[in-house]
């Protein structure tokens, strides 16, 4: 392995301009793929953020004050469906407090209302907004629930939008990944093609297929590895540079801020992807010129 690695490294070192240009193309392609990936990841989080906003409101009868056991029973029944993102109980006192906050500028309205007049309620959000109707139907069956409300029209419009945006994102990211594959395979392929004569000579000298192929696979992997490192480095620098600007709008949603762990995961993924595609490029290109 050491011998193959030495040969691969020697080839890179002894053709510095070719190496530099090939590395630049691989790095830029992977940089573009990284930006697309981060954009897709952010879009996914934004969609998740909006998808979990709609909720079902279930109101108890005004004359009932549900016990905590009753609320827990409803919660466990709902959560057993696996559809619930968030469950919140609003007691009569909570309802009065919210009412007071909403009408703080109108003392007349405040005087006329007591907690007994307001119903206790439940606020339930779903992991998938399409399941809100199922949760609403189940809540309607619960004892003591008088009314269940959710903005069905708005929710279904949101579902249509998020599905369309998600499909477009998947298509765009897939095409970018495909382009990345093709570009890296072509760059490595061109490198191997320029050494077609060398492959013939090695075979005539009695080299086995693995002896000829291994350094080219390693060379491709080196391109992928170095290209991924450079691409990630540029992305991270660009991210650090633009953080103050992005903080004013995108990072208002805290989940969108890429943590160092997430960025390291991106680096790991890139290194694996780059090395694998580079190695595959080396293997496929060499096989074209190997004579049996």
């Amino acid at each position, binding site marked *: 392995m050491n011998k193959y690695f030495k040969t691969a490294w*020697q080839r890179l070192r002894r053709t510095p301009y070719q190496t530099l240009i090939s590395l630049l193309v691989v790095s830029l392609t992977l940089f573009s793929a990284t930006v697309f990936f981060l954009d897709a990841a952010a879009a996914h989080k934004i969609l998740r953020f909006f998808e979990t906003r709609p909720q079902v409101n279930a109101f108890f009868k005004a004359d009932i004050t549900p016990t905590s056991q009753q609320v827990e029973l409803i919660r466990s029944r709902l959560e057993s469906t696996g559809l619930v993102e968030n469950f919140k109980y609003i007691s009569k006192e909570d309802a009065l407090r919210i009412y007071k906050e909403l009408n703080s500028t109108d003392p007349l309205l405040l005087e006329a209302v007591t907690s007994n007049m307001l119903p206790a309620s439940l606020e339930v959000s779903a992991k998938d907004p399409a399941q809100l109707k199922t949760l609403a139907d189940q809540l309607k069956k619960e004892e003591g629930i008088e009314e269940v409300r959710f903005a069905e029209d708005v929710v279904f419009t949101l579902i249509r939008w998020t599905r369309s945006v998600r499909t477009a994102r998947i298509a765009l990211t897939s095409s970018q990944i495909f382009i990345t594959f093709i570009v890296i395979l072509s760059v490595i392929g061109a490198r191997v093609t320029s050494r077609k*004569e060398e492959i013939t*000579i*090695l075979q005539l*000298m*009695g*080299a086995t297929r693995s*002896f000829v192929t291994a350094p080219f696979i390693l060379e491709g992997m080196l391109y992928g590895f170095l290209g991924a490192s450079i691409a990630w480095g540029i992305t991270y620098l660009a991210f650090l540079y633009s953080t103050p600007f992005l903080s004013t709008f995108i990072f208002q949603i805290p989940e969108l801020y890429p943590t160092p762990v997430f960025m390291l995961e991106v680096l790991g993924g890139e290194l694996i992807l780059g090395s694998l595609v580079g190695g595959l490029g080396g293997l496929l290109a060499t096989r074209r010129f190997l004579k*049996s």
Partner: protein
Amino acid sequence: MVTARNVTKKFGNITALGDVSFSVDAGEFVFLTGASGSGKTTIFRLILRDLKPNSGELVVDGHHLSRLSTRDLPHYRRHLGPIFQDFKLLPDRSVWENVSLPLEVRFAKPGDVFAAVKIALQMVGLSDRSSLFPSQLSGGELQRVAIARAIVGKPKLLLADEPTGNLDPKTARSIVSLLKDIHSELKTTVIMATHNADIVNRYGLRVITLENGKLTKDTPKGKYE
């Protein structure tokens, strides 16, 4: 060492070799002569198993080439020492690295590689050029590197395909003289393709003559005709 029985090789409709039969004993030095396109290079490529014949049989050092598997092919080639008219050296490797190539491909120990390359370079008189690259050498020196590469693995058969084709007469004579020395010293079988009459006539060795893919003459102490 080499036995060809009714070997025919066609490229499309063109017959490069037609029904050629000959044999070369171990330790012989044979000139293969004929005009360009007479089939000399095709014979070398068939012996190297770079090509397969359409019909006939070729046996080299006990290997029936038509039955040779892909797996065994590299091991078979390691017993051959090919020398090409266009040298076929790797431009981004030094003289030393080019010469060591046949030993590298058979995973020889570094100590053995060092000793063998040193001896091969001494034999061709290029010890002081070992760190240079092919672009820094003259035509004669390039051919010497190619010869050193061919002999470094102590092959049983040297196949020199017009090794003097690109060289001036004086350098050409020195290259053939070198091949003769190697043949005498290492007892290697040598088949050398050439259309250089001066060289063939100078040594009075066995000459196989090809014309339009047919073997027309095989004389033990022949002349170029």
